[in-house]
């Protein structure tokens, strides 16, 4: 599959016939989805907390310049450094400069989607610095030279047999016939391989789930403890973050944390939630000597005006993709963008451009499940519709789709005409289908009938049935 959103239709088709991927996608349903339902159900305050989380993010976004300045002030006061990057290129160079100044040869990394967005691994490698992903899922896909297929479970598309084969290929110094069939064997090997990397790294790079203006603090939420070893052992800690991750206070972050893990993995709380403020204090027993926060914009300040501000509430839990029938059918790689699923389809055109990502807002059946589970209540279907509209306005929808939409719009604006044709079509299809009640092939309907039958209409439109019933009802009432 090609990491290019322009290839979405081709990628999606390939994904549908990929059996390993299909088995992996089924596991999402029994895993994350089922566990989220349980976690949300056992906390009576959950819905109220979602409202509170939405309100905190709305308040912060409406005061974003002030909170970012306050974060900076408080971070500097604790001895930290704050760097600002307009785009991914600036962010990459800042990180490289910090690593060079530290004389870094190897860099350990905690999971960071902002790091993916700026392709930091590639940039470090190109400049002679070795980046080592330490989150188990990220480590697996780094070996496979792949991008994450999910924002919190980056290797959820990979089977354990594949991991086993990858480890045998990568870890060449080990006994070739060692047992590597069970997840436990794989885990033990990854733990052993990464231990020395943690201890020897010169710089540790993490992302941040939140920045806290009140204290100048960054927060990471992990389950493995890799992020903590990454940011505690090396002498330099670099935090990669985007502007919308800032929240006002520790209490505000706390409210958001109450909905984050429950929405993401269905845990009551992730194993490790870590608040980092500045470098180690002079008398501290351990910790990094330098603490750098790289705050990247990359299109987000533009999204602040207009309807897409709501997208900036996103806390990157992944619930929307876990529950999305499209994502669960094709996996994350098919999208070809850094961020997959419903949130990715709204965010990607905003942080890249619409012409190259025009397929993504189409990758939705508008079933509404994403909005239903979003912890900060982002109206994802509405925002996808905004992009579809924008794509039509900009002339990015072409050919049959544009012609069809124009024709439909012409009729939809003329109710009489619309009803006439709808009625005609219903009768025609109903008659043609006869007793069988379905079609196994239809002109212009091959995309549907190649895979399944098309159910025939009963012969009457909704409006005509409604009218008939109303008349009937009135007659009975009159009688």
């Amino acid at each position, binding site marked *: 599959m090609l990491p290019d959103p322009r290839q979405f239709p081709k990628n999606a088709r390939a994904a549908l016939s990929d059996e390993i991927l299909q088995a992996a996608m089924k596991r999402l349903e029994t895993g994350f989805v089922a566990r989220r339902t349980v976690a949300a159900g056992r906390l009576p*305050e959950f819905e109220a907390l979602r409202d509170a989380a939405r309100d905190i993010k709305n308040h912060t976004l409406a005061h974003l310049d002030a909170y970012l300045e306050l974060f900076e002030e408080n971070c500097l006061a604790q001895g930290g450094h704050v760097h600002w990057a*307009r785009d991914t290129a600036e962010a990459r160079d800042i990180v490289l400069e910090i690593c060079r100044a530290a004389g870094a040869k190897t860099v350990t990394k905690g999971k960071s989607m902002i790091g993916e967005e700026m392709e930091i691994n590639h940039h470090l490698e190109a400049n002679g610095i070795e980046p080592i992903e330490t989150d188990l899922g990220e480590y*697996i896909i780094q070996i496979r030279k792949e991008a994450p297929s999910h924002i919190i479970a980056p290797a959820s598309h990979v089977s354990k047999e594949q991991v086993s084969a990858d480890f045998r290929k990568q870890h060449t110094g080990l006994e070739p016939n060692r047992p590597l069939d069970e997840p436990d064997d794989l*885990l033990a090997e990854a733990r052993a391989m990464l231990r020395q990397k943690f201890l020897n790294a010169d710089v540790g790079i993490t992302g941040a789930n939140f920045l806290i203006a009140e204290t100048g603090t960054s927060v990471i939420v992990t389950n493995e403890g890799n992020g*903590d070893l990454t940011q505690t052992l090396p002498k330099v800690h670099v935090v990669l973050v985007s502007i919308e991750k800032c929240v006002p206070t520790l209490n*505000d972050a706390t409210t958001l944390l109450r909905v984050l893990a429950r929405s993401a993995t269905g845990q*009551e709380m992730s*194993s490790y939630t870590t608040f980092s403020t500045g470098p180690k204090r002079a008398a*501290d027993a351990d910790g990094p000597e330098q603490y750098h926060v790289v705050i990247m914009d990359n299109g987000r300040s533009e999204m602040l005006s207009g309807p897409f501000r709501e997208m900036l509430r996103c806390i990157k839990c992944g619930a929307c993709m876990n529950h999305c029938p499209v994502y669960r059918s094709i996996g994350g790689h098919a999208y070809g963008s850094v961020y997959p699923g419903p949130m990715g389809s709204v965010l990607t055109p905003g942080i890249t451009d619409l012409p190259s990502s025009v397929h993504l807002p189409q990758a939705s059946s508008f079933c509404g499940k994403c909005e239903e589970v979003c912890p900060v209540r982002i109206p994802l279907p509405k925002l996808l519709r905004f992009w579809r509209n924008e794509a039509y306005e900009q002339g990015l929808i072409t050919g049959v789709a544009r012609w069809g939409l124009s024709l439909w719009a012409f009729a939809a604006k003329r109710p009489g005409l619309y009803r006439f044709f709808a009625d005609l079509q219903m009768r025609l299809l109903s008659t043609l289908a006869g007793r069988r009640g379905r079609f196994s092939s239809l002109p212009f309907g091959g995309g549907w009938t190649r895979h399944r039958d098309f159910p025939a209409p009963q012969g009457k439109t909704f409006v005509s049935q409604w009218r008939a019933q109303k008349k009937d009802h009135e007659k009975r009432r009159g009688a």
Partner: protein
Amino acid sequence: MSARADILGRIGATLNSESDQAARRSAASARLSSPPVGLAPARSLVDRDAQITLFREMAEEAAATTDRITSLDDLPAAIAKYLGSHNLPSRIKTDEDPLLADLNWQAQPTLDVSSGKPTDADEVGLAVAFAGAAETGTAILTSGPDHPTSLNFLPENHIVVLPVSRMHGPYEAAWARMAAARDELGMPRTVNWITGPSRTGDIEQTLQLGVHGPRRLHIILVDDGEEEGA
């Protein structure tokens, strides 16, 4: 123009159409000086005993084990018993918390106790918690001269000592305890909320413990006879 000025300028230009810049700044400062307290789960707003019960339930659900002792003097014996029952090495590395200063480790001659920063060779770490949050069975630990953060993550087995006077219901109550300490010492470099041992579901969504951090987390609650917290 610097990237900073550019980014803040763009944000400001958008927000200026809805509010005044000075008003935004003063509203933000006001929220920071008196932070609103969020909605806490009702299950955590209970008395101390119920909090302790809830804490143990939630921590055990997250795959930690718990124990409760009635006096700090019993700690060496409780640790020896735990290590023995899991066939773990008896060499332990502790932090330098004042609570541990006067313990009679000699009463447990099998234990080999040293303190300070751990190395990769240390298999058992022991740390004293700053507080506990009952709502999810979360132990809260802070970094400092006596408290190396690496002790919470490097050793494969993590023992946490939590005096029950430091037990709180919701997280916010633990933040309030820290705010009091912060006035004196400032915000610590690291605050760790720890809810169960290290885990992953990265291989086929199968839950596995002990990826990079501790495989086992054992929390020993100690009745320390002090009446604080809420």
